[in-house]
């Protein structure tokens, strides 16, 4: 009895010991490289750190935040972030559901389609952005050449240089890159649904729309929620797509909070202000982060 208890106690202690040491390197890494900079970054947002104007990093209270909310470009960047994110998420989710349902059907050659649809995911994001930039090129791009030939436009359009078309163009490129991930997530959730369920629904006279809204979507609704939150987070953080295609231009029309903070930091060298913009971004993302954790926690249970 005592022997067994001792043994169990020893086991528990050794599990604790080993658990600590196995997890320690990873946790140390994240504490130093993520937790510390985040705290420091938030702290920096209350300082006048500015390498151009001789700000020495001393405490300046809420001055950066006050300046930020008076800055028309910051407000424009907030608006653009909303448009950019909502457009990306709505289009990717809608197309993702259509793609996943189609890929889960009985079409011939499923394997080939599944491979082809994954291509944008494999292409590096920098390559994707620069290739789209080439396709959207004003004088030699394939987009203008094709649309001119089809008679849909009368003269070449500078897709990425025009204030009206720049945002739709970057959204299109980013949807292309992001769709495979959403599709694969949804497809993985669809696959376990037994085919008999669809057959039974069909015998009962359910049409395509009824099958979709009564069977497919209710079964995968948690995956839809997770995919929506993840796509939102990825999109808000998607620096590459915008920076490499437009650098936030023309006239700040595609400037999102992320690229604006980067610009203020590494082109204007006003690190204090950039840190406060990043802090706002961080708070915004934390909301989605908490929703994400909530969904994952439900999955655990």
């Amino acid at each position, binding site marked *: 009895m005592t022997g067994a208890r001792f043994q169990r106690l020893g086991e*528990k202690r050794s599990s604790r010991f*080993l*658990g*600590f040491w*196995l*997890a320690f*390197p*990873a*946790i140390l890494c*994240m504490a130093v*490289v993520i*937790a*510390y*900079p*985040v705290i420091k*970054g938030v702290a920096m947002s209350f300082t006048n750190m500015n390498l151009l104007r001789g700000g020495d990093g001393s405490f300046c209270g809420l001055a950066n935040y006050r300046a930020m909310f008076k800055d028309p470009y910051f407000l424009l960047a907030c608006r653009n972030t909303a448009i950019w994110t909502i457009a990306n998420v709505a289009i990717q989710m809608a*197309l993702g559901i259509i*793609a996943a349902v*189609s890929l889960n*059907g009985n079409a*011939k050659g499923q394997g080939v389609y599944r491979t*082809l*649809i994954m*291509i*944008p995911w494999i*292409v*590096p*994001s*920098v*390559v994707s952005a*620069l*290739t789209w930039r*080439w*396709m959207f090129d004003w*004088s*030699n791009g394939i987009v203008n050449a094709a649309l001119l030939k089809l008679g849909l436009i009368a003269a070449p359009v500078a897709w990425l240089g025009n204030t009206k078309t720049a945002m739709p163009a970057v959204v299109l490129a980013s949807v292309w890159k992001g769709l*495979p991930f959403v599709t694969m997530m949804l497809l993985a959730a669809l696959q376990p649904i037994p085919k008999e369920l669809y057959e039974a629904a069909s015998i009962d*006279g359910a*049409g*395509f729309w009824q099958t979709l809204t009564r069977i497919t979507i209710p079964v995968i609704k948690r995956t839809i929620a997770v995919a929506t939150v993840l796509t939102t*987070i990825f999109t808000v*953080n998607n*620096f590459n797509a915008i*920076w*490499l295609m437009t650098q936030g231009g023309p006239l700040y029309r595609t400037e999102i909070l*992320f690229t604006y903070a*980067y610009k203020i*930091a590494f082109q204007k060298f006003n690190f204090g202000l950039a*840190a406060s913009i*990043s802090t706002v*971004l*961080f708070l915004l*993302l*934390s909301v*989605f*982060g908490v929703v*994400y*954790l909530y969904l*994952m*926690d439900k999955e655990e249970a």
Partner: protein
Amino acid sequence: MAARRSLGRRSTGIATIVCVLLSICALFPFFWMVVSSMKYDDELYRDPPTLIPQNPTLVKYGEALSRGGFGRYMLNSLFVTGIATAVSVVLATLGGYAFARLDVPGGKALLFGILLTYTFPGILILIPFYFVFRSLGLIDTHLALVIVYVTFTLPYAIWTMRNYFLQLPESVEECAMVDGCTRMRALWKVILPMARPAIAACFIYCFVSGWNEFMFANTIVTKESLRTLPIGLNAIMGEFTTDWGLLMAGSVISTVPMMALFSLIQTNLVEGLSAGAVKG
């Protein structure tokens, strides 16, 4: 009955059309990248453009490797991403195992805290880190990139490993430990071979993340000899003119290792799954 069957056939038809359309949309930019990389300049800038190179050439690839420095960038990318991936997979495997099976101080709260960092904006980390790296003399080093890439991939990698370990029956290690293995030995000899699919998935995730990373590399590395592929590609973009053929050749060069990795891991994934299932 006939109507119902035709409905089924019709929806299959629609699904096929959707699949074909999506495949074409997914393929076209990639196709255009390859086509553009194989044309001479006079054909590349011809109006209207040719869909298939009339005079296919690899001259831009030669240029990318010699003048463009893409051989060097490729080595740099392989080095940085390779080391970061190896470190990250090892740390995530150990950490994931600890969270799945052992008693980690902080337990579930810590685990969810780790996942939360996955959503943090990189820019909030980059700004203070730029100063830290500067004071440590790590600007213009590959070490700085390795540190960043390891850490950024850890949260997701730890979760993947942990979820996979949770699926494995605990009796597997118990048997090995009853037979006299220590826990570490059981992990090494019994659990790891069964976890190959999860390790492969982590490997892909970490490698792709590092290979694609642009912002940190662009800010931390300024020396040309240290550039990774994404930085090298972006450097071809000129302010007034861009050698698009060269850029597309560089793009293909940057994409090929990704395709190789996916085809390689896919066979290993299947192999790992079946080996694990039969022997386990």
